[in-house]
């Protein structure tokens, strides 16, 4: 049986920009009525360029920012943080991994404490068990127990992203929002982190919302794809449908702009250059 973990109905988010002495107050429509749903163990990729509202959407899904209107359902329960306080259960269920692994870890906090913190805040698990769980999680994401007492600056970008993923998984979330998790990483490290994400998804039946602007990564990892453009979802469908038959002109522009690294395209380019 398939179970819908995340459902969004007509989500809208407006930001009111206050006017100053000489400027009028205005409203920025960051997200304009977006609907989608993600089933358990699946990956929805949200694609778009800077300013298209994909990170605003991530903030709404992660329950950091309330939506101006529309419904957000997590595991079938309606969540509205604008009107009622969030339950600890909900806080546990949704976690996020940010783009920049250099900015998202506290430089003065040891890795063990980074991983223990979510448990310390959200549960009453004793210190010894917190430590055991952090150790186990370190191994799970491909690090070693001796990393427990080290500081973030002692790790490479890829290792830090593993730590950020480990921290997000400490509370056994059902939904993980990944905001450009591999954009800052080198190609080979990117491959390792994508493999890790795929393994973890299989093991814990995790649901991913994967935000990216890299279409080749999206094609590799996503089950469903949503393309956003100026706050609207201009294209939404299964990966194969979107990639084989893009409907919206913006999606086609996006595909056309993505550099191709196959031999045929190179031959075509060189032939064109010779002719010119």
């Amino acid at each position, binding site marked *: 049986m398939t179970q819908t973990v995340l459902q969004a109905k007509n989500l809208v988010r407006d930001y009111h920009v206050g006017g100053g002495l000489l400027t009028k107050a205005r409203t920025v429509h960051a997200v304009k009525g977006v609907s989608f749903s993600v089933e358990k163990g699946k990956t929805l990729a949200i694609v778009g360029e800077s300013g298209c509202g994909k990170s605003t959407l991530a903030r709404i899904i992660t329950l950091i920012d309330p939506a101006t209107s529309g419904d957000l359902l997590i595991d079938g329960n309606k969540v509205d943080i604008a009107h009622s306080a969030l339950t600890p259960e909900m806080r546990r269920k949704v976690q996020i991994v940010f783009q920049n692994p250099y900015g998202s870890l506290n430089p003065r906090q040891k890795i063990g404490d980074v991983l223990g913190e979510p448990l310390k805040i959200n549960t009453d698990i004793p210190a010894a068990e917190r430590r055991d769980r952090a150790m186990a999680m370190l191994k799970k994401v491909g690090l070693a127990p001796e990393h427990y007492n080290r500081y973030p600056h002692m790790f490479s970008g890829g290792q830090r992203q593993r730590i950020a993923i480990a921290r997000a998984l400490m509370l056994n979330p059902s939904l993980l929002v990944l905001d450009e998790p591999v954009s800052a990483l080198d190609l080979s490290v990117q491959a390792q982190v994508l493999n890790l994400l795929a393994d973890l998804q299989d093991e814990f039946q995790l649901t991913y919302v994967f935000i990216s602007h890299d*279409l080749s990564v999206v094609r590799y*990892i996503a089950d469903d794809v949503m393309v956003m453009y100026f706050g609207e979802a201009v294209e939404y469908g299964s990966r194969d449908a979107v990639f084989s038959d893009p409907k919206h002109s913006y999606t086609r522009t996006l595909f056309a702009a*993505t550099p191709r690294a196959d031999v045929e395209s190179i031959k075509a380019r060189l032939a064109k250059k010779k002719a010119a």
Partner: protein
Amino acid sequence: MPLLQIKNLCVSFDTSVGAFMAVKGIDMSIEPREVLAIVGESGSGKSVSMLAVMGLLPKTATVTADRMAFNGVDLLGLTGEQRRKIIGRDIAMIFQEPMASLNPCFTVGFQIEEVLRVHMGMDRAQRRARAIELMQQVGIAEPAERLGSYPHQMSGGQCQRVMIAIAIACNPKLLIADEPTTALDVTIQKQILDLLMRLQAEHGMGLIMITHNMGVVAETADRVIVQYKGRKMEEADVLSLFESPKSNYTKALLSALPDNATGDRLPTISDFALDPEGATA
């Protein structure tokens, strides 16, 4: 005669734990009108070797080379003053972060005109006319008005266009682009790459493209150098590199592209027998 010829370039940095070799004996040369891509991951020394050519490395760096000649002139033997006459005029460089490489305190017009004043000795009216022409060439709408804009009033793509305008202001013979599109969206990346390729063809410049993106390499380069941990792994023309890569490292890089994924897992560097020291395996 090659435009730029480098033989056995080594760069080491003094650190608290001794010297760190960032570039370990790189040879390369680029002909006029050629597009050369240097590919590698962070720490491969691709930026450092080009910064050494530009003379932009900090004092802690030691640069040695058997030969480093631009247009037949030995760069290492020049005094600072002589070298500054070449750098910025005959060799120009653009950087990864367009927002960070422009000075936030001055208008873009001032920054474009500064190059013209220093290197070309133009008067005020000539500088302004040339600046407008450059802004047009790099595709900025309403160039005369935009000269009065500050960097923060422009988008990332526009800032990169301004950087390119500054770089090509003195019609350089060689343009070094260090990850020029990494901070930009794909659609903007396409525009900037098209612009660079058009300018390269129009001006007949040599172009060195430093990147870690194999897609960018495939779309721009004539010839490719692959670097890993300060050493050159492979050098080939672009088609043979993608068709039949010789070194294990290049094979690893190409197969780590999600485009080339076969099956469930992406191959990673560790799946290939690579000498961690970076010697050709």
